[in-house]
């Protein structure tokens, strides 16, 4: 049991009519792991998450969750999952606390246990003082926290979080990250999707980059950066970039391992930023600004798909 993966997928496919949203992916997630799906809009992240959550039937392929068959054993699997969907589906006419108690009852918890869990979780997501209030007036971040609390109500073995922090302000995101980090420390297996590389870096032990329904890369955030990028990136801007981007990119060729012209700047992938700065000066180039920074998953993504993550 211990070394059996919580999620095991082989050749997983999801089609909507003729359109293929998930195009034959293989996955394995181990107990206690925090696993992430990173990818742009329409990559197939949510479609994959819904299949894992046993609410959407795979078109083909094998999918085993918690050692059970996702198609045959849906109810038994769902009993042990916690799901935070991309779109909140809280009951707006119930109070904050009633939302949790009602949901706990769907899992067969006794009334006393449901109430106890509700109060404990409201404490955990810092919504205790809103317990008796309606859901409607809560802020986006509070609703998200409540949805996450709701996903924890059955003390799940596996928690699925589809874009847990999209649309939240930085402060709300940090609070959520901190709560999710605590869950992870308790040994809860987390699977999340995100557009944010900082989120993936913060929370995920391992992640896959999805694009067009396929997995294009897999590894820890660090190893992905090591494999697909360089330790440092120099961002160079020139006056009047937009017309002459390609020419500027050509002038920077050879400064680093790779040069990527973007509409507003040129990215130069280098091992040593200072050496690159010296080389730019030696070539007599006159950029309007130069910035040296560490490589991020954003660079990995750009390299793998030719597109930025957040569009």
């Amino acid at each position: 049991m211990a070394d059996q993966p919580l999620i095991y997928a082989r050749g997983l496919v999801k089609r909507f009519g003729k359109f293929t949203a998930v195009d034959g992916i293989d996955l394995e997630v181990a107990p206690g792991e925090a696993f992430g799906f990173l990818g742009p809009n329409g990559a197939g992240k949510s479609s994959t998450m819904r299949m894992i959550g046993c609410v959407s039937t795979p078109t083909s392929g094998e999918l085993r969750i918690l050692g059970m068959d996702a198609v045959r054993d849906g109810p038994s699997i769902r009993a042990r999952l916690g799901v935070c969907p991309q779109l909140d589906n809280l009951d707006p006419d119930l109070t904050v606390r009633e939302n949790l108690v009602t949901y706990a009852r769907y899992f067969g918890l006794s009334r006393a246990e449901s109430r106890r869990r509700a109060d404990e979780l409201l404490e955990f997501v810092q919504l205790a003082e809103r317990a008796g209030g309606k859901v409607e007036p809560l802020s986006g971040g509070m609703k998200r926290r409540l949805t996450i609390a709701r996903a924890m109500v059955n003390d799940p073995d596996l928690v699925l979080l589809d874009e847990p922090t999209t649309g939240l302000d930085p402060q709300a995101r940090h609070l959520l990250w901190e709560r999710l980090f605590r869950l992870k420390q308790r040994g809860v297996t987390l699977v999340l999707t995100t557009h944010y590389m900082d989120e993936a870096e913060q929370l995920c032990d391992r992640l896959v980059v999805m694009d067009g329904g396929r997995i294009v890369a897999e590894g820890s955030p660090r190893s992905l950066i090591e494999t697909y990028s360089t330790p440092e990136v120099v961002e160079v801007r020139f006056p009047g970039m937009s017309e002459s981007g390609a020419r500027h990119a050509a002038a920077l060729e050879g400064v680093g391992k790779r040069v990527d012209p973007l509409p507003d700047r040129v990215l130069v992938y280098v091992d040593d930023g200072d050496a690159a700065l010296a080389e730019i000066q030696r070539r007599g180039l006159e950029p309007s600004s130069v910035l040296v920074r560490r490589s991020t998953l954003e660079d990995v993504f750009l390299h793998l798909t030719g597109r930025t993550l957040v569009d």
Partner: protein
Amino acid sequence: MAVTHGVHPTVAVLERHLTLYRRLWQASVFSSFVLPVLFLLSIGIGVGGYVGRVQGVDYLSWIVPGVLASTAFQIAVGESTYSVLGDFKWVRAYHAMRATPVGPADMVRGQLLYLVLRVTIAVVAFLVVVVFFGGLHSPWALVTPLVCAVLTVSVSAPVMAFAATIDHDSYFSLLFRFVVIPSTLFAGVFFPVEQLTAVLRPLAYASPLWHAVELCRAATLGTAPSWPVAVHAGYLLAWAAAGFFLAVRAFRRRLED
């Protein structure tokens, strides 16, 4: 791991509806109890004064079972339309349930139980008032809540199936205009269906409401219904069974993606 199966998922769904109802019950007391009573008094006593006796009894006594069954009918249909579509489209409450061990059959059963409960409370309250006006003539009146409960399932279930299939609430006005209102008018609530021309009479026979009205009337007056009891009851049960099957199928399809 430690999931205790203390409560059946169907009961958990029923509880959600009851929790919501706690918020709204004051509003519903008017439409499901006060209104039928006012209706009964104005038509039964007011109109009854001109009509005199119908089929051998005073008009008030004659329409009591009609208003009773049609109150159940109104609640059953009314509570199975917008709220069901809304729970799919806007609230997405069924999607929330779908992520738990609750299945489509639990969702439908839970909601039907809730409606039966709502209708039973309204019907019993109505009966209590009617006793004071001398509107009940047989101890068989005690079975009318059961008839109304069966009626509720036989109309709620197909309407829920319909609500789970459509994508826009404008279809409901068609349902009300072409199904609910004609059913109410021609189902023997206000006048015997024998008054209808032969062309319209099958409309009454097709409506579950007419069969429930016949059974209720036989019960409150202590007479025999137009057709054998088993036929009336069987017809209602057939609607209930078919409706339940269709509703579960519609729920399952709508939640599948």
